[in-house]
């Protein structure tokens, strides 16, 4: 097992290097003036500054491996550079934005996984019944609805009309209390968690209130996959002979499902769930943008659009790392759940 893990971890630098290589090559397609334009969002910045001088200064006319080498050297010394889209040091930007994404991911993971599994299981057990039909239609509409449509629609109805769930992380006065009064201690940056640690339920309630709409939106569009996979996996499991045996033994249906079927059906589901969560962690770009939640997804999207290289490269490192670890974790879980699986 250990040898397996180590071998898989060796893949990490290869994957990361591959990603970075691709980005540097794409950046390399630009000529020095175009690269300079990346630094210059607004023409008036060029008053009294010679563009050629700037190109020399930033080494924009040097070959790609020079710039890659320079970046790598900085990273080894812990310097990830300055993100111009975040107007912060890259590591500082991660510290600020990552907790937001983690919070949303964790809260969304619960309904997505539990809801998806539960609905999928229900669909399978009551196959072709009204519930099954409803669940499948429900899932498909969610899947085919683009996130931004669902999100904006939700905002217009539940905030615009009903005033229930506002965008943003906190209400203005709660935000001012949390961040400027000095009476609230931010331990992790995950507001709901910090509210509990501060034993402040007023902040917790406000934070939760602002999370409901993004979480529901995310869940609605993500349920389909888990639902379908659970359903088909469950259906297959229910056809197995040992299930027939269990029923023949006289066990109540509830026990048959819970004790025997579900566990085995969950094996492929674990993979999907793990990857879904990892995908969510990588950034919920649209959700964060629409609901005004300052997370890394939104930051990464801006960085990509404006070719903010230091931010992009750091984000690539992060998400590459995340995906590799997530895959590894899921495979290990596989082996843990299913004794038939051997990791070679």
């Amino acid at each position, binding site marked *: 097992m250990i040898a397996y893990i180590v071998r898989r971890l060796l893949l990490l630098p290869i994957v990361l290097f591959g990603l970075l290589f691709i980005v540097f090559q794409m950046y390399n397609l630009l000529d020095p003036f175009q690269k300079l334009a990346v630094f210059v969002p607004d023409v008036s910045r060029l008053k009294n500054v010679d563009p050629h001088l700037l190109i020399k200064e930033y080494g924009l006319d040097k070959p790609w491996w020079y710039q890659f080498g320079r970046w790598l050297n900085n990273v080894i010394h812990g310097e990830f550079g*300055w993100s111009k889209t975040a107007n912060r040091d890259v590591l500082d930007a991660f510290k600020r934005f990552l907790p937001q994404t983690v919070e949303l991911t964790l809260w969304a993971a619960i309904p997505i996984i539990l809801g998806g599994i539960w609905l999928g299981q229900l669909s399978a057990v009551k196959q072709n019944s009204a519930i099954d039909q409803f669940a499948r239609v429900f899932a498909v509409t969610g899947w085919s609805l683009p996130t931004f449509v669902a999100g904006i629609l939700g905002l217009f109805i539940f905030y615009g009309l009903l*005033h229930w769930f506002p965008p943003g992380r906190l209400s203005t006065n709660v*935000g001012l209390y949390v*961040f400027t009064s000095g009476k609230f201690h931010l331990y992790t940056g995950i507001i709901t968690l910090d509210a509990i640690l501060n034993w402040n339920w007023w902040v917790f309630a406000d934070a939760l209130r602002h999370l409901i709409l993004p979480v529901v939106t995310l869940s609605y569009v993500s349920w389909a996959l888990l639902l379908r996979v659970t359903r088909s996996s469950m259906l297959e499991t229910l056809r197995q002979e040992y299930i027939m045996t269990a029923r023949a033994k006289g066990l109540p249906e509830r026990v048959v499902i819970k004790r025997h079927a579900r566990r085995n059906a969950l094996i492929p589901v674990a993979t999907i769930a793990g990857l879904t969560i990892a995908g969510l962690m990588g950034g919920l770009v649209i959700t964060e943008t629409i609901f005004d939640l300052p997370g890394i997804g939104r930051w990464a999207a801006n960085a990509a659009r404006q070719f903010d290289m230091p931010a992009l490269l750091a984000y690539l490192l992060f998400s590459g790392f995340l995906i590799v670890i997530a895959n590894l974790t899921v495979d290990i879980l596989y082996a843990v759940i299913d004794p038939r699986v051997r990791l070679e």
Partner: protein
Amino acid sequence: MWKKFGFVLAVIAVFGLMAWSQEKPIKNPDTIIYATIGPAETCDPAYAYDTASGEIIFNTYETLVFWPYGVADAKGVDLTNMSLDPAKLQPLLATEWTVSEDGLTYTFTIREGIRFHYVGVKKADGSIEWVDYDSLSPEEEKNIVPGYGELTAEDVEYSIERAMLQDRDGGPIWMLLEPLTGYSSMRDLVKAALGKKVDDLKTLTPEEQAMIYKKYIDPAVEAEGNKVIFHLAQTYPPFITILAGSWGSVLDKEWTIAQGDWDGKADDWAKWWNPGGGEVPEKSPLFKAVNGTGPFKLKRWDIGVEIDFDRFEKYWRGPAKIKHVVIKKLDEWSDRLLLLKNGEADIVYVPSQYLPQVEGLEGVVVHDPIDVPQVALRAMFFTAPVVLEGNEFIGEGPWDGYGIPADLFADVNVRKAFCMLFDYDAFIEQVLMGKGYKIHGPIPKAFDWAYKDDPSLDWNYDPQKAKELLMKARNGELWEKGFNLTILYNQGNAERQIAAEILKTNLEALNPKFRVKIQAVPWKTYLSYLLSGKMPLFIIGWLADYPDPNNFAVPFVASYGTFAAWQGEYMVENVFKPYFDDLVKQGMATTDKAKRAEVYYKIQELAHDLAIDIWLPQRYPYRVMRDWVRGWPINPIYPGPYFYPMYKAYD
């Protein structure tokens, strides 16, 4: 299952009730919330050159003089007191000032008894601690160390000198250096002083630094008692308007030094020059630290997300009416719209194409148009010669294989024809929704004393006349051969796209051999083509740094101005240099307003006769706000809202 469902319903009901119970007539009565786009870059007044940073500095720091404002709030628009006339500048940190006959010496008397947000207090162990001035009781105030957080003439001297020595790349300090030293940058100054070009001033020796400081910087601004005296290196009529900009903000010398900034030593300033190369604002010690005399204190800057201000209770003009200001960065239009609708934002930035969505909203007031002239200009520029080699958008055609001859726009008659083929009324209708007006450049209408209000200087859509000119061009060759012209615009910019389409329609209607292709390109391509002279036509705007005609004359018509280099060598050598350079210099050679006006009139006439650009009509400004907003100041030169007189009420 129903139990779970019921639980969820209950939770929703609770939140619904919470929301409902929060319904008050005026939301957040002590706080003004401004939702806008555009992130602030820095809080350092010497570093900041974007309007978002300017907004922060404008409300936390103060300058010697201040532009008077009109009011455009939910009750109405009153422009009586608003002015861009330097004669009407109001004393702020200065109480009065005089200018010498030759315009080379400015003397300001500094107001007494003004304190900064943070003052230096002597602790028991003798050290000095910087504390919030508002938090001190009258007893504790006795421990304030004189000068530490107290406005003095030395503070003004230090602030200006520090700014000059910082001069970061791409920053605003050229505006202080030009009048006070005669050079546009510290690099240029050092080159003249040492006789050699130095790219990185941090390599200067202490002796070199001392020499430069003593010769150029120190004498430029001196503090004598309660007076500050500026010694200009050249006559510079707009100097006082420059001091009103955010770069003229006054810092507390002792506090700034305590933040780790320049300690005032003559031989040791290069360390603080050009922090971060002008690309990493964090390298300046005043990046996030703010200590001003202004009506608001910076409480928290969550970069790229939100800016929170608390009012300065002991502000020298009396505390502001509003306790808190929150500036939210909200890029998503629907979020801003919903916040405005629900009263959770008081002022929002509305792109003009979304105005129909806010007009008629309950509780929202829209002023559109507001009859205030803009301190900005936009034009379509001609390039001659166009760089044809390696130009992937030039296309094939009858001109040595290229779609156009490189010197197409070298012919003034071709330029004039293009000016006459632009349908200004259509642009006003389609792009400005009818809420615009024609202008001619390069002096904005806002400078009414220098703007020649003569309709003959405006171009009109005249296809007949244009046809005559184009038929004669190049001895008829142009009309015979035709051309394949590609006009680029940057993706997403509807305005530039429509402007291009208008030209295309009218050119192609004239002669079937005139073929125009419109193409969208990414911003980085647009900019890189602009910089390398590859675009025959391009659209650029210019926003005033300081409200004086010179700030527009230089970039638009001086051969050494920003735009000249992009318009090609022909234009530089045959149009800008011979016709305009002298005039631009003359405009700055005297402080006599009437004489200057004459010069700028001449510049406008020549700009018309030589058809240097196609001037795009301007849109009237507008404002959108909740109906309880009061006291919102207006002056086109302000970088953003000035919150001091603002409050929320129904009256």
